[in-house]
């Protein structure tokens, strides 16, 4: 039997995290209808037995509502993170390759977006786009690209001056081949890890603006909605309404973080023999 090494452990961790997130997403989708079912014969049940997360004041199953909410959050997170990472990639590469004026302009936009508090800008954009799903995705996408764009700009600038790239030019390698063989292997891990580490941010921000009432509509079983509604009932001793959805939200965010970190470790050439 082969000895289990560090890389295999990391890969297993990554696989488990991805699988778990996938299961939550699919399960949330399948129970989307049931999450809206109200039944006053079972209202305000505390956790246990048939309803492991309890039920709320309308007799809705909190477990299913939480799953559906998380599934919604993950989908928004993936969409928004993808859009914002691609935006970061394009703008980062443009800043590094298109000359001084383009660089100055893009750096200025990055500073501008970074200078405004995230949540404020998010609320403004989301509100301007009419709230709801579209507003949240556009808002999150437009606020989360800055740090990754900076990383990519820096990486490309550094690569352009790297001696091994200049040596490759002298060895007669074409620009396209240099970009493919020499630059991409450096940019891709940065990009992928940046993309995955944007998910947790996107999910948390989605939940927070929904909580504040600028995100998803109130009929949607989203984590932000669940948490803000449960605020009214916390004082009446119904702790389960906020505790389990909150815990699961944190758990999901941690899972994405674990997945991103594992991937970073696996892609690092320094770790090939661990």
């Amino acid at each position, binding site marked *: 039997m082969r000895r289990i090494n560090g890389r295999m452990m990391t890969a297993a961790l990554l696989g488990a995290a991805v699988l778990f997130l996938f299961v939550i997403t699919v399960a949330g989708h399948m129970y989307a209808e049931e999450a809206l079912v109200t039944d006053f014969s079972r209202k305000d049940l505390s956790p246990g037995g048939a309803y492991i997360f309890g039920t709320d004041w309308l007799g809705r199953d909190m477990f299913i509502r939480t799953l559906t909410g998380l599934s919604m959050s993950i989908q928004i997170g993936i969409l928004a993170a993808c859009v914002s990472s691609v935006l970061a990639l394009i703008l980062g590469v443009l800043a590094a390759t298109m000359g001084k004026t383009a660089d100055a302009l893009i750096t200025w936009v990055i500073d501008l977006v970074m200078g405004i508090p995230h949540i404020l800008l998010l609320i403004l954009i989301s509100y301007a786009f009419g709230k709801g799903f579209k507003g949240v995705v556009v808002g999150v996408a437009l606020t989360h690209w800055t740090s990754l764009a900076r990383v990519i700009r820096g990486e490309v600038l550094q690569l352009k001056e790297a001696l091994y790239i200049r040596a490759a030019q002298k060895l007669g390698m074409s620009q396209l081949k240099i970009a493919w*063989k020499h630059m991409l292997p450096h940019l891709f891990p940065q990009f992928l890890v940046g993309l995955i580490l944007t998910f947790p941010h996107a999910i948390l921000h989605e939940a927070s603006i929904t909580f504040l009432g600028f995100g998803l509509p109130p009929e949607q079983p989203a984590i932000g909605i669940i948490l803000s509604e449960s605020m009214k009932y916390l004082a009446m001793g119904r702790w389960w309404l906020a505790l389990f959805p909150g815990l699961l939200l944190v758990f999901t965010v941690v899972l994405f973080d674990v997945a991103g970190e594992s991937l970073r470790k696996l892609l690092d050439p320094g770790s090939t023999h661990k």
Partner: protein
Amino acid sequence: MVLEAKNISFRYGKGSRQILDDFSLAIENHERVGIAAPSGFGKTTFCKILSGYEKPDQGEVYLDGQPLSSYKGYCPVQMIWQHPEQVVNPRLRMREVLKEGDGIEPCIIQGLGIEEDWLNRFPAEISGGEMQRFCIARALGKRTKFILADEISTMLDLITQSQIWNFLIEETKRRQIGLLAVSHSMPLLENVCTRICRLDEK
């Protein structure tokens, strides 16, 4: 074939020290020329200019009567750097690094003592001396006409130094490649080169 540097002047940025001032040198492809000077006299800078990495402020480098900058694609003048770890992509395996060269013959790989086992490793997993052999091999592609060796053996033990220099002398003789060797060590240059030129004597 002759590699000529004509009236080269160079300094790094305005206001900084003049490193090369109206310097000229011609190397034939059967010659091995040694360049000696203390630190900071522009030995590496001269190599960079000769191989087209840096543009001189004045003067021009000619290969066979044509400006070196007019050669597109593979550059017939290849420089071997002092620090091999800077000229090798840390994310490529050594096998890929060798492939970057222009059809490296197996006899070169053997002659430099590169072992089969090293080819699958990443640059971080071999020593500086081992990496330098790959850089030397990579520079000795089919279309190479001149080799500029900038302090290539400083990090090696004496036995390896002599092994590598003997190989380079044989190879350049065999293929009529011109060699420019840069070193602090006069005894080394005296043994390797057919003539020696000092950068610090005007």
